[in-house]
């Protein structure tokens, strides 16, 4: 027992709780009973053992326990992994999901057709027993309708339809027997029953006749064909009439009611000559035209060639001109015409120079008495008795200015220079009105111009104002009409100037010919390593023709092998040598407007052209006492 106790003690010292538990069991089995039966020397060990056993049992018991949760207890079923997987695959709220399902009913299934609200509404509007309701209806027949018995009874009153005869006159009176008493045409039931029959009313006889539809179709085809033929005839007639009208227009356009020897046609190049243009001498007149071409002030460049050709472009004749630009000012035009001594320049347009715009937008008018402020676009009012004035102080003393105004004013306004009021093209008094335009020349005598009104309370609004300086010389030359082109002012000269120009060549008119102006210059010279041009203001753009004149023979050279100098003032050619006489024509490139050309020619209906001299003669026949006298008069 002592040895065992030592062993137990040793175990107690080094063992674990399980060992202690075994010792306790051993002691219990050996000793039996309670602590009272244990020898005294072992009691303390037994007590230790008991405390250890209690602790061990408590620990063992605790390890087999789970925390208590209110409302939960141990399950009698084992919750397996498979079941847990099933739970994971279930919806969050199975009952809710089931609420969205319908109970299965034997013999029923899902419908392949969607039963819509609209259909449901239709069903709601159906009778309770549709078949029964249909039983109360009659089948519909096209063209038939239900007729009240009273109307059917009336039918019995009508005569038999067989062998009816009726006229159109009473067809509208459907309820009248009279409709059937105007017998003209026999219409039987059988004939009406025949297919494709139509009834026609003959407006001449007043009868209704039956005919087969095919007859009408044939008639319609015939009518259509006749209409087409008629349209073709009308078109042809129109063409013929148009040609005749054109001929008449041509005749009228060249009508020479006074039987003048010469006629004229005018227009921009090219111009056409009439049929009665004689094959004889012709002269031309060129008129100036000034235009703003893309911001560049451009005039008519007359230098070049006026060419006249026959109706097939044959028998060309040409007139070469060298002259300054021809200008216009909206009213008058410079012109080149054939005078008594040949072609001459008639200058009608004077050219002045305008200074830049002189406008102080901030305050176009400043100054002194009895006027409120005056700036562009605002109203100036005379505030004091006796009126007032306002000056434009930014003008130099004694210089001339062109002033362009747009104003709205009441009566008695004046624009003037302070002292001498030297106005050109402008009366001192301004015309009263709204948006009045005014252009005038004015000399600023003391550094300003004035708007003045002698009455109080008068108003004027300067809507726009342009002031440009102009030379005294130009002001003196400027007449009543002028136009502004860029920095230039074009005015009509009080006295046109006439000066001869350089020209050469002969122009002939031709029946139905064409006259046109082109920038082609003729030139000639002696070759000296190169061929210089005469008119250096008109450099070569392209060469039209090169002729080597040798021993009285003209040899035309290939222009494609000519080399034009970079400045266009000369060219070389491999077939030319120093000392060769060269005749050539070339085109130049210079901006020009298309001025007017007037061609004057002889009327072949009035004059005859001498086939040798080219002179024109008018033939006059006079019969005296039965004797014909024919007289030739040169025209």
């Amino acid at each position, binding site marked *: 027992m002592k040895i065992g106790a030592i062993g137990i003690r040793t175990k107690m010292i080094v063992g674990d709780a399980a060992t202690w538990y075994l010792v306790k069991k051993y002691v219990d089995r050996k000793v039996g009973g309670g602590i009272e039966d244990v020898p005294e020397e072992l009691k303390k060990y037994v007590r230790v053992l008991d405390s250890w056993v209690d602790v061990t049992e408590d620990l063992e018991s605790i390890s087999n326990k789970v925390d208590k949760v209110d409302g939960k207890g141990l399950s009698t079923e084992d919750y397996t992994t498979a079941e847990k997987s099933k739970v994971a695959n279930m919806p969050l709220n199975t009952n809710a999901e089931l609420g969205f399902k319908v109970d299965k009913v034997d013999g029923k299934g899902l419908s392949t057709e969607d039963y819509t609200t609209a259909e449901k509404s239709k069903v709601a509007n159906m009778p309770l027993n549709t078949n029964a309701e249909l039983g109360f209806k009659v089948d519909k027949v096209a063209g038939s309708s239900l007729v009240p018995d009273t109307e059917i009874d009336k039918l019995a009153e009508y005569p038999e339809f067989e062998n009816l005869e009726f006229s159109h006159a009473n067809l509208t009176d459907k309820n009248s027997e009279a409709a059937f008493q105007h017998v003209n045409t026999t219409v039987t039931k059988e004939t009406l029953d025949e297919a494709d029959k139509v009834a026609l009313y003959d407006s001449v006889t007043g009868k209704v006749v039956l005919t087969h539809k095919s007859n009408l179709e044939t008639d319609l085809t015939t009518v259509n064909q006749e209409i087409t033929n008629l349209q073709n005839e009308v078109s042809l007639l129109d063409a013929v009439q148009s040609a005749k009208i054109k001929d008449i227009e041509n005749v009228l356009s060249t009508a020479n009611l006074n039987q003048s020897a010469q006629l004229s046609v005018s227009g921009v190049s090219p111009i056409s000559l009439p049929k009665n243009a004689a094959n004889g001498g012709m002269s031309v007149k060129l008129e100036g035209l000034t235009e703003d071409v893309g911001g560049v002030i451009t005039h008519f460049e007359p230098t070049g060639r006026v060419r006249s050709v026959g109706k097939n472009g044959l028998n060309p004749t040409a007139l070469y001109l060298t002259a300054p630009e021809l200008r216009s000012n909206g009213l008058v035009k410079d012109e080149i015409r054939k005078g008594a001594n040949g072609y001459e320049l008639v200058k009608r347009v004077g050219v002045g120079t305008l200074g830049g715009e002189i406008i102080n937008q901030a305050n176009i008018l400043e100054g002194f008495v009895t006027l409120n402020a005056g700036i562009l676009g605002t109203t100036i009012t005379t505030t004091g008795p006796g009126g007032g004035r306002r000056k434009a102080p930014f003008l130099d003393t004694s210089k001339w200015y062109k002033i362009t105004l747009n104003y709205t004013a009441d009566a008695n306004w004046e624009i003037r220079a302070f002292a001498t009021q030297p106005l050109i093209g402008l009366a001192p008094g301004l015309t009263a009105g709204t948006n009045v335009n005014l252009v005038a020349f004015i000399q600023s005598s003391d550094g300003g111009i004035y708007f003045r009104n002698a009455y109080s309370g008068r108003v004027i609004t300067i809507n726009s104002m342009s002031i440009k300086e102009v030379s005294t010389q130009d002001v003196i030359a400027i007449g009543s009409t002028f136009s502004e082109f860029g920095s230039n002012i074009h005015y009509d000269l009080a006295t046109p100037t006439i000066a001869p120009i350089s020209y050469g060549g002969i122009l002939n008119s031709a029946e139905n010919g064409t006259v046109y102006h082109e920038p082609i210059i*003729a030139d*000639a010279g002696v070759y000296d390593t190169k061929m210089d041009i005469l008119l250096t203001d008109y450099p070569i753009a392209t060469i039209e023709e090169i002729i080597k004149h040798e021993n*009285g023979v003209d040899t035309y050279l290939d222009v494609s092998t000519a080399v034009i100098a970079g400045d266009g003032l000369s060219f070389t050619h491999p077939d030319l040598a120093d000392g060769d006489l060269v005749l050539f024509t070339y085109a130049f490139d210079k901006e020009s407007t298309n001025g007017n050309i007037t061609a004057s020619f002889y009327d072949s209906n009035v004059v005859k052209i001498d086939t040798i001299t080219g002179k024109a003669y008018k033939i006059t026949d006079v019969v005296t006492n039965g004797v014909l006298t024919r007289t030739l008069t040169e025209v």
Partner: protein
Amino acid sequence: MNEIYIKILAERAEQDRTLLAKLPEEVRTEVEKYIEDVKQTDTDNEQIL
């Protein structure tokens, strides 16, 4: 030769008197005649004026 070329050669000859000597004889004759005609016309016009 076309009259226009005679006129042009006459204008050139007015600027360069050596040109006439470079021209073929028949052309020179025409140009000289043209120059004389122009001078005569100018003289006639002056007398009229």
